[in-house]
């Protein structure tokens, strides 16, 4: 696995400081870049010429049954198996506590023989309640966007293309409610698949499974339309098909991942920041400026037509849209200078909202594929938090004061600073937030709040150092064995740039939504639409190339590489082509 480690060169690239980048609200403003796992997948499929075919499609007139797709890469053969069933409306819930879904599916390695198919049929539809086969790399489930699905199937059955405004509302036909990898419920461990050249990166297998679900979703809706009226039904226009992604509904379950994988998060953020620094350091040409202007206009159009139910997020989108207009004016007026991009970011930092600042960073990274795409190979990490027991305590003290100053200097005594506690519910082990002193379960709190724990270590360390100035880390641990986990983390993370999210996760003002958005941005999710403060709907692969694009030898490479911030197809063009 390639890992780019900080080098001398980084010093000349002026990476942003962890104090700036790892602040929770900023992380909660990230937009997906071209280095996201979703974008990387579509490029990889193109570069390596994956061959994908539908090998079985056993659906009845209601679209219920199963389908199998075969993915042939240069190294391995995989299959995606989808099970579709009738689901009563009352059973359709996005919550992780659901027990039935419209669709369940899996991505597996190798062939699907009768014996395996029998095991899949018996277990994949049960999801968490099943015992899954070790050849499965991913299992997942999805629910219909009922209105979008009904609208599209009815239109196609009547020989019409669906109303584009309806497509804009949801942007997908199905939304996943959990996508499981890494050994969950008996499937293959990541330790195994990271040896494969196709899926060695975290979340790459999950992204491939979701991409294939997108294909199935349209295959299924077209099938239902044909069954309803074989004489009149038409296929969905390719532009409309391309505009449909796959939704995802995500809750607090995603939050612990960001805390429990600090080395991976550090690597992801470092790659993003390095890509930004590389982009900013490029002396722009007129062509680059024109391209940046075009990207700003596309992002503004995307924001203008993106339907978001959450009022605060709608406001943020609206503000970003307005500010992009200012950015466009700024770019059109200022003279072309070697330091233009730095000037742009300096201006943005003082004048624009965080949402717009981070959006501009994403667009700048988009400008320079040749310079930044190589960084994609550094998105993995060998995760191992190691202790250095012989480290002198004075050195550990200095590390805490240098890298964890934000944590050890904070006040955790006031009521607001210790308002929330995180715990795991007996309901499918779902992570939840409770109010300290009011709700049950505090004694079973999950140790996610790193900041107050680091402060406790610091205080015990200072006391021990007073008594034993030459003490080592092991001496502190022999006195306070309960500090083992956090000391390992402090010592390991001191050698990284990023990784620790600089927030008190107990604090009343802490917004868990920021944690979710940060992770979702790295996966490549668009259309961020919070539902309250603890779960969110997003869309993957909207605007992404279709399988038919991969089969089309005349398709422009740009189709596979430049599909972020998708804008709805022109209604007239779609209708005219009927």
């Amino acid at each position, binding site marked *: 696995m390639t890992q780019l480690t900080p080098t001398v060169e980084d010093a000349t690239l002026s990476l942003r400081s962890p104090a700036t980048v790892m602040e929770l609200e900023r992380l909660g403003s990230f937009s997906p870049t071209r280095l996201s796992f979703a974008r990387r997948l579509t490029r990889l499929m193109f570069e390596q010429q994956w061959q994908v075919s539908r090998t079985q499609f056993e659906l009845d007139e209601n679209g219920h049954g199963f389908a199998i797709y075969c993915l042939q890469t240069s190294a391995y053969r995989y299959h995606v198996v989808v099970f579709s069933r009738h689901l009563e409306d009352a059973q359709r819930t996005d919550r992780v506590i659901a027990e039935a879904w419209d669709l369940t599916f899996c991505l597996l390695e190798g062939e699907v023989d009768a014996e395996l198919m029998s095991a899949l049929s018996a277990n994949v539809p049960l999801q968490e309640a099943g015992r899954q086969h070790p050849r499965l790399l991913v299992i997942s489930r999805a629910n219909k966007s009922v209105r979008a699905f009904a609208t599209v199937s009815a239109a196609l059955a009547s020989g019409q293309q669906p109303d584009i405004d309806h497509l804009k509302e949801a942007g997908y036909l199905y939304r996943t409610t959990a996508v499981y990898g890494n050994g969950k419920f008996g499937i293959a461990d990541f*330790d195994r698949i990271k040896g494969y050249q196709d899926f060695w990166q975290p979340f790459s297998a999950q992204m491939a499974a979701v991409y294939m679900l997108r294909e199935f979703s349209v295959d299924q809706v077209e099938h239902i339309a044909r069954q309803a009226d074989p004489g009149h039904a038409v296929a969905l226009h390719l532009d409309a098909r391309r505009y449909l992604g796959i939704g995802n509904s995500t809750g607090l379950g995603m939050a612990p991942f960001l805390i429990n994988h600090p080395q991976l998060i550090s690597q992801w953020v470092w790659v993003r920041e390095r890509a930004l620094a590389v982009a900013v350091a490029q002396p722009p040409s007129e062509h680059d400026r024109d391209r940046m202007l075009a990207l700003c206009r596309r992002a503004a159009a995307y924001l203008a037509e993106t339907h978001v139910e959450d009022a605060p997020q709608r406001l943020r989108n609206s503000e970003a849209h307005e500010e992009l207009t200012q950015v466009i004016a700024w770019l059109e007026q200022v003279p072309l200078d070697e330091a233009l991009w730095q000037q742009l970011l300096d201006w943005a930092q003082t004048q624009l909202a965080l949402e717009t600042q981070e959006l501009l960073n994403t667009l700048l990274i988009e400008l320079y594929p040749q310079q930044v795409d190589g960084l994609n190979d550094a998105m993995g990490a060998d995760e191992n938090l190691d202790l250095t027991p012989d480290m002198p305590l004075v050195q550990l003290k200095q590390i805490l004061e240098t890298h964890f100053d934000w944590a050890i200097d904070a006040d955790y005594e006031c009521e607001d600073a210790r308002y929330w506690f995180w715990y795991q519910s007996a309901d499918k082990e779902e992570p939840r937030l409770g109010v300290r002193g009011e709700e049950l379960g505090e004694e079973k709190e999950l140790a996610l709040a790193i900041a107050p724990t680091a402060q406790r270590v610091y205080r015990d360390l200072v006391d021990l150092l007073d008594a034993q100035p030459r003490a080592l880390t092991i001496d502190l641990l022999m006195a306070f*064995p309960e500090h083992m986990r956090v000391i390992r983390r402090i010592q390991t993370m001191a050698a990284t740039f990023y990784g620790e999210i600089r927030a008190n996760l107990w604090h009343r003002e802490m917004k868990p939504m920021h944690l979710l958005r940060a992770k979702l941005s790295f996966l490549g999710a668009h259309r961020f639409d919070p539902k309250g403060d603890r779960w969110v709907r997003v869309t993957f692969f909207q605007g992404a190339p279709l399988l038919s694009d991969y089969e089309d030898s005349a398709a422009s490479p740009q189709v596979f590489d430049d599909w972020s911030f998708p804008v709805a197809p022109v209604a007239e063009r779609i209708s005219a082509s009927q």
Partner: protein
Amino acid sequence: MKISLNELQSVCRKAFMGMGFTAGHADDASAMVAWMQSYKLDGMKELSEGLECVVASAASARPNVIYQDADLAVVDGQHMSVLSSGNLALELAFAKARIRGLAVIKIRHCRQRQLIMGYLARLSSRGMNVTAFWRHSQSPITEQVVGFRAGSAVPSIRVYELADIPEDDVPNDGVTILMANHVDLLPTIRSEDEYKLLACHDESDLLAAKQQALEEGLTVDPEIWQQLKSFAAKTLVEASEQSRSGAGPAE
């Protein structure tokens, strides 16, 4: 039943937390069990056979150091499982070996000594040559030697039976570990000695076993698995209407 390595580690970690281990000790104990199981060395069997002892050991996170100097330590294991404080005892020796080049630690009166191999693997991956030696109390006496080359994930293991039973009434319930920064300590049995080799695992055998476990999943006894899940459930908060709202508003 078949489970994945990640499942095993995750359920074990929660089970140890449910028994009362601190978070860091639960991490280490679960890694020790999972390490053995992933190399087909029966970590789960070792755990389950001494489960009562593990539960009783949960609160004993601090090793009881009887003696130590710059490069030697003797620890009283107090008849507890090595899962409870073995990690810290070994880190103590590791620190000494890093400073002095070579260190020895003796953990007396400890249980489930096989499981200590998982932690030795971790020390080895941090660049330490490690050899552990212990005798079993059965008659006839057997000896076990486990050696890790610095940086290697897997050890070389030898278990053999002694032909001659020494006159010795010291209980065989301890383990002696040598660590050396720069010198290989791999076990090599002298050929002129009389012994009966009972088990021999070389690095290549163990790597193959791990690969097979990853491809086919790990086999565990469903009854033991259920026991662990029961302990793990103690870390979960019972669901209520109020707690359901803790995951966000309904749709």
